[in-house]
């Protein structure tokens, strides 16, 4: 198995390094605004925007050719500026869709996810119709304009692929913006009314964030494809939110997770399919979609964090709950013995307390054993009795409880 992995990775060349760098930069660039989107509970924005940019691209395309046919710009300028037009159209529609969603939600008191759903399906349908009506004979392949592929990075000027330079500059811009507006972003994400009273325009921050996100997403769509972008917008930020409570640390952790996801994703795309499918009898399968595998890895990292996160993980939470239940079971048993002892007032021994439905018998016997081991109760012929140590413990608990209830 290890030889197979080695074999898969042995083909790693500078091309693969560029893929990982591009994907990692794109993932980090998306994850940064993603942290704030997750805080504001607008994570589905990525998926919605990947649809709503379609009419923007079609309109920009038509406008570009319209200007050319109206002889306002020359054909060569038109061809040169076409990518810029498409990018601009996509960004504009991204911002428009964010604003429309907000508008529908505010005006109609529609629930936010429903508003998003209405807006993005409508805009996408509008884009499709526009293609059918106007650009039927024109080759606008949204897949091609919109969705790049991280596996097809081409070397550009000075040995750096164009897509890499693009997402790299995106990351730099986003980092600068987040550092510059860190306080404003944080306050308006956590408490918009407080932000307003402090003189920060929460509304403006919201639209600025939406515009940045839309621009980032569109640029990243074009460089690395939609699936990677949609996932990377949310998954690293959500994973980081399970790992830490402090926002600055969360930002750093998010970036780290985005990087790890890209690296591991590409490595797994090269090795895992061959590993699985050679056993199933298909030795032809060597590798699989890198972007898809990165999304899967992002999901797997999230599942790992979901189980093993130090404070918010399911295992640590479950352990904490079990510990609490165990302590309560011990207390219950001590209390039952104490009450029985006081009721009889004669003998120090009483029957072993029966396990109750709320505790379950496993907890009950565990508690009994631990109490015997810590010498708080002692086994007798008929059952258990409190030792002096146990009596002190239960009296202390009872006083504490009565103190708590009296205060």
């Amino acid at each position, binding site marked *: 198995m290890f030889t197979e992995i080695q074999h898969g990775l042995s083909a790693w060349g500078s091309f693969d390094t560029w893929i990982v760098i591009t994907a990692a930069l794109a993932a980090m660039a998306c994850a940064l605004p993603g942290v704030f989107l997750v805080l504001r509970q607008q994570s589905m924005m990525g*998926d919605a925007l990947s649809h709503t940019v379609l009419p923007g691209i079609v309109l920009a395309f038509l406008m570009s050719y*319209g200007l050319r046919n109206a002889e306002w710009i020359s054909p060569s300028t038109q061809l040169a500026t076409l990518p810029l037009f498409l990018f601009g159209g996509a960004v504009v529609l991204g911002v428009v869709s964010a604003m429309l969603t907000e508008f529908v939600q505010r005006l109609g008191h529609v629930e936010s996810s429903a508003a998003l759903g*209405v807006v993005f399906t409508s805009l996408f349908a509008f884009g499709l119709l526009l293609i059918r009506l106007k650009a039927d*004979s024109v080759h606008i392949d949204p897949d091609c304009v919109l969705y790049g592929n991280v596996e097809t990075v081409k070397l550009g000027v000075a040995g750096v692929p164009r897509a890499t330079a693009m997402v790299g500059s995106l990351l730099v811009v986003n980092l600068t913006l987040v550092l510059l507006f860190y306080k404003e972003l944080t306050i308006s994400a956590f408490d918009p009314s407080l932000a307003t009273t402090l003189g920060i325009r929460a509304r403006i921050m919201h639209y600025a964030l939406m515009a940045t996100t839309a621009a980032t997403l569109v640029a990243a769509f074009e460089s690395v494809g939609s699936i990677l972008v949609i996932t990377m917008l949310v998954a690293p930020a959500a994973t980081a939110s399970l790992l830490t409570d402090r926002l600055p640390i969360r930002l750093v952790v998010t970036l780290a997770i985005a990087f790890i996801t890209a690296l591991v994703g590409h490595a797994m795309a090269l090795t895992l399919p061959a590993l699985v499918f050679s056993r199933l009898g298909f030795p032809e399968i060597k590798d699989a979609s890198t972007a898809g595998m990165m999304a899967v890895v992002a*999901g797997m990292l999230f599942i790992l964090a979901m189980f093993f996160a130090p404070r918010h993980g399911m295992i640590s939470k479950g352990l904490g709950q079990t510990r609490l239940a165990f302590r309560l079971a011990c207390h219950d048993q001590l209390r039952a013995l104490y009450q029985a002892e006081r009721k009889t007032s004669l003998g120090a021994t009483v029957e072993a307390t029966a396990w109750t439905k709320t505790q379950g018998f496993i907890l009950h016997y565990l508690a009994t054993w631990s109490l015997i081991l810590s010498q708080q109760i002692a086994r007798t012929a008929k059952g258990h009795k409190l030792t002096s140590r146990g009596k002190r413990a239960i009296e202390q608990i009872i006083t504490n409880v009565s103190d708590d209830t009296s205060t």
Partner: protein
Amino acid sequence: MSFQRQLDWPSKTGSFAVRRSAMQTAICLLFIVWSNQEITAQISPHSEASGQGHQTTSQKPAGSLADNRLAWPAAADVKRVLLMQDYNTRIVLWGTTTLGLAAGITGTFLLLRKRSLLGDVVGHASLPGVAIAFLIMELREPQSGKWLPGLLIGASISGIAGMVSTVIIRSCTRIKEDAALAITLGAFYGLGIVLFTIIQKLPTGSQAGLGNFIYGNTATITQSEVDLIWRVAIVAIVAAGLLFKEFGLLCFDEQFASSQGWPVVLLDLILMGLVVAVCVIGLRSVGLLLVVALLIIPAASARFWTEKLSHMTFCAAVIGVVSCYVGAVSSALFSRLAAGAVIVLTGSVMFCASLCFGTRRGVLLRWYTRRRLNQRIATQQLLLAIFETVETALLPNPQQALTDVTVTLEDLLPKRSWTAKQLRRSLHEAQKAQYLASHPGRGHRLTAQGGRAAHRAARNHRLWELYLLQHADVAPGHVDRDADRIEQILDPEIISGLESALFKKYPQMAAS
């Protein structure tokens, strides 16, 4: 190939002057989108046949080809489409409207559970299931991978898995619903893409067109799919009918339902199972976009019209059916309109109309109610302010009546925090209601009716003030300072007690 055609667009600059301004950019855009007719003439006929719009219109005379973009179809065509005489039209109409019905009903519950985007997630999450089902069937027996029921079962299972994982993420961690949906969507869709790239490299060769095979298109819907849609729709209607009360309880108060002993998890699973069924069959027959839209838009539109769950379900079903019908018919009549997109856009138009004109939560209605309330409060405040002014003026000579004193704008302006403009508008409204009579140059005077109203407003207002002072510990929530309903809310004894206190404080109120 098609760029070439684009280059040949005839220049239309002659029709408007060449001025380079931002305005013209906009005009140009509109111009291109809506009125460039020449392009139509160059459209090759095969583009109509390929894909979305299904053609039922008969061949146009050659002369009108140049300007037949969205030309009105002949009466005979309209009749044929409306009476569903064409097999193709009939299939598409039945299929989409039935799907609209089922999606409208299930979407209602989805919306109320605040899970509208679940349809989107299930749609994407079904991708790996399709791939895995294909792989399993291929491994068992080569060339059998495209057995449709197997693929649909795979899609359903992984759709359910995606749905369950969002529920687990949301309920077991601190992650909110939206992030849970987005992560599930991304991870499942990513897995699907990975598997599909692998399938493409398989040497069997039977995988060609698998993507299109499972992700359908409204225009290419077939009889067998319509039959499947019918069954799903009947199941959805029967389930919603039988479990209506339970689903309602689940939507509005899940905790209450579980405390009453209902099997909440099971009910939730049944409801979500219905959603997955609608999604998967819709995905196969009409495509992802339309299913997602049909699950969200009709339900969201219906919410504006009613506050009752049964009415809302009915209304959503009707809106779903109507938008599907209109979309399918117009796509049959105008061959250039894609059915799926037109259905969604019809739904959007109905949503916008509901948003504006809805009789329960519509924007116009809310705007009107708020305006009326504001007006009423403004009039009340105006009368109070006038009463206070007149009252002070009357103190030296108590034999005069309320209606004898003239008040001016300047008297009233400092009484409340209103601007002169607002005050003037309120004065105008009060005049229209015949509470005030205007005396040009001197100001306004209360009419007899206005005097009564002002006195009554002041009395009620002051009674409430006294109530707050004396009985605030009883029920401060009762207090409605501007309401005329003090007699209906408070006991007669309390009112008479308050009144005697009032007359002690303001003796002049007892006199008038």
